[in-house]
């Protein structure tokens, strides 16, 4: 559905059912250079199992008007503005990669508004190598290839995503290519610059779930250790045979972890 957030058009996929603010709300927040469709299966499932779903396109991504926001803190505030626009009350936030930092910061800033956070493919600090950061600015196609290759742990996935017959590396590359020029650099700068993770984690009042890919080389499980320790009420699920693109590589396992949490 389309909303107006801070005076700009914002889009959120509602999982194939109309959004009902009276139901428990779950917000899905995608990562850098992505949009809502990385959550197609998980968001659709929860929308058909008693939740109201907002799988957002962050500003400047997918169908939401730009420009892209430049800090995790700004994006966290935008999520609350989006909840206001949708007239939603308390919500669980599910974020992937950059989206996990947004969920974390948002929960710390809004303890009464956020009822739980699921952080998928997360790490703090989420440092980006100079080589990749430079490429996002100077050579976007090269940066997209780097991220695409590093995000996937295998060249075959069962039963693939969003279903059999899809080549997930090709899909991921094309999805990144669909984002507007400049968005990738803004996103990666925001991830790299985010410094408040430890403080935010300590301030989170709600339960947290970390979902980590055992073969993730972008945000390896060891890089989430400090976050895990700092969160007062956290548990984690490590998924075997998955890299950073967890929802694409292991859609069922991610869904099972989320469905048990929210």
């Amino acid at each position, binding site marked *: 559905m389309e909303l107006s957030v801070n005076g700009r058009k914002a889009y959120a*996929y509602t999982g*194939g059912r109309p959004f009902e603010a009276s139901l428990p709300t779950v917000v899905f927040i995608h990562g850098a250079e992505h*949009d*809502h*469709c990385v959550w*197609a*299966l998980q968001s*659709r*499932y929860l929308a*058909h199992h008693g939740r109201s779903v907002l799988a957002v396109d962050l500003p400047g991504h*997918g169908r939401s008007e730009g420009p892209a926001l430049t800090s995790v803190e700004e994006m966290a505030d935008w999520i609350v503005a989006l909840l206001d626009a949708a007239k939603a009350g308390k919500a669980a936030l599910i974020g992937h990669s950059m989206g996990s930092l947004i969920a974390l910061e948002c929960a710390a800033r809004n303890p009464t508004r956020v009822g739980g956070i699921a952080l998928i493919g997360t790490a703090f600090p989420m440092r980006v*190598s100079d*080589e*990749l950061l430079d490429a996002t600015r100077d050579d976007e196609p*090269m940066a997209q*290839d*780097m991220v695409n*290759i*590093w995000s996937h742990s*295998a*060249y*075959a996935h*069962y*039963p*693939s*995503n*969003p*279903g*059999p*017959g*899809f*080549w997930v*590396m*090709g*899909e991921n590359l*094309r*999805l990144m*290519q*669909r984002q507007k020029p400049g968005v990738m650099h803004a996103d990666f700068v925001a991830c790299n610059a985010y410094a408040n993770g430890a403080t935010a984690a300590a301030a989170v009042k709600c339960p947290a779930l970390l979902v980590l890919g055992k073969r993730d080389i972008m945000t390896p499980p060891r890089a989430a250790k400090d976050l895990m320790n700092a969160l007062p009420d956290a548990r984690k699920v490590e998924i075997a045979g998955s890299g950073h693109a967890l929802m694409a590589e292991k*859609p*069922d396992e991610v*869904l099972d972890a989320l469905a048990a949490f929210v």
Partner: protein
Amino acid sequence: MSTPRYLGFDTLSLHAGQQPDPTTGARATPIFQTTSFVFRDTDHAASLFNMERAGHVYSRISNPTNAVLEERVAALENGIGAIATASGQAALHLAVSTIAGAGSHIVASRSLYGGSHNLLHYTLKRFGVETTFVDPRNLEGWRAAVRPNTRLLFAETLGNPGLDVLDVPKVAQIAHEAKLPLLVDSTFTTPYLMRPFDLGADLLFHSATKFLGGHGVAIGGVLADSGAFDWEASGRFPELTEPYDGFHGMDFQEESTVAAFLLRARREGLRDFGACMAPTVAFQILQGVETLALRMQRHVENSRKVVAFLAGHAAVESVNYPELESHPDYALAKKLLPRGCGAVFTFSIKGGRPAGRKFIESLRVFSHLANVGDAKSLVIHPATTTHFRMDDAALAAAGIGPGTIRLSVGLEDPQDLVDDLANALRASQKS
């Protein structure tokens, strides 16, 4: 971290889409010869039907063996996914029927495989889909033929029978200026010789019966999507951008930014028309795909030797192969097909129909049949077989002469092929 690279073509041909079977450890792709798949519970069943979970329900819609083939072809083509179909014709029909219906219009090259021409010119017309055929080399002709109800531009990467090389970048540009997708039939080139998505095409299909399978043992097709065409921005495809009552009110473009076309094609086209591939066929085609690069190299090498031989033979009037300077697309072929122009081409024999008949009947290694893309060399003489009812004027209109012979060069020892052709040419010229 060092700069990463994707797996190469040969490696993808062997590995993309498949890992050793997690249950049995089988290294080869198992043939999942089953119609249906057990649900874990009722919720699992409902969520599979509603596309909340990924998985297999019924082999008309998807099958694990087919999925390996689909994902492998998508990887080789630099696409996002693919659908295996009962034949190449089924793949073309699935592409058209997903985005066109009664009242729609197609602009197609006039240089097409006869089966494709039949479907567009006769059969689809009965269902309200009209096609305008254009000279594929005439770019203005493509542009001029587009109408407000056009849904698709369609051509073969190497046209039939004249081996017209499609200027994919330019025709794609014309399509995109009109906010339309370009569909290509890549059967003759395979992803080893050309990757049309890298040149701007949006959709492609193969008759997998031919070079992908490569051994003349199985009929099949594959339809692949680049994922690059923006159906929403086009505004001409409500099938993909508006809720579909026939599948849970799904708006496929909203569901997936890049996968709308394939989602609808599988959830509607395979479901309702049912032209699916059998899992055993998928396995057979996969065996061919594993050696695609090696075979295409040899197909091209052998073709070049045969072309050189024919071009210098006194009984041959002309050879129609884009690597020859005499071919009108010589320069374009050098640019778009640097690895070669495939293994199917025509030449004209002196002496018309009688010489053609004698030539065909004198061959010993080449097999006289109606197929191409086999490991074995094949031959057909249209004027005395597929087009025997036509007089010379009608043949000429179809781009075929009375002495036109079509070869599909296989993987035999090239000297044996040359010797076989030499003997048959000699016999053809005896009165």
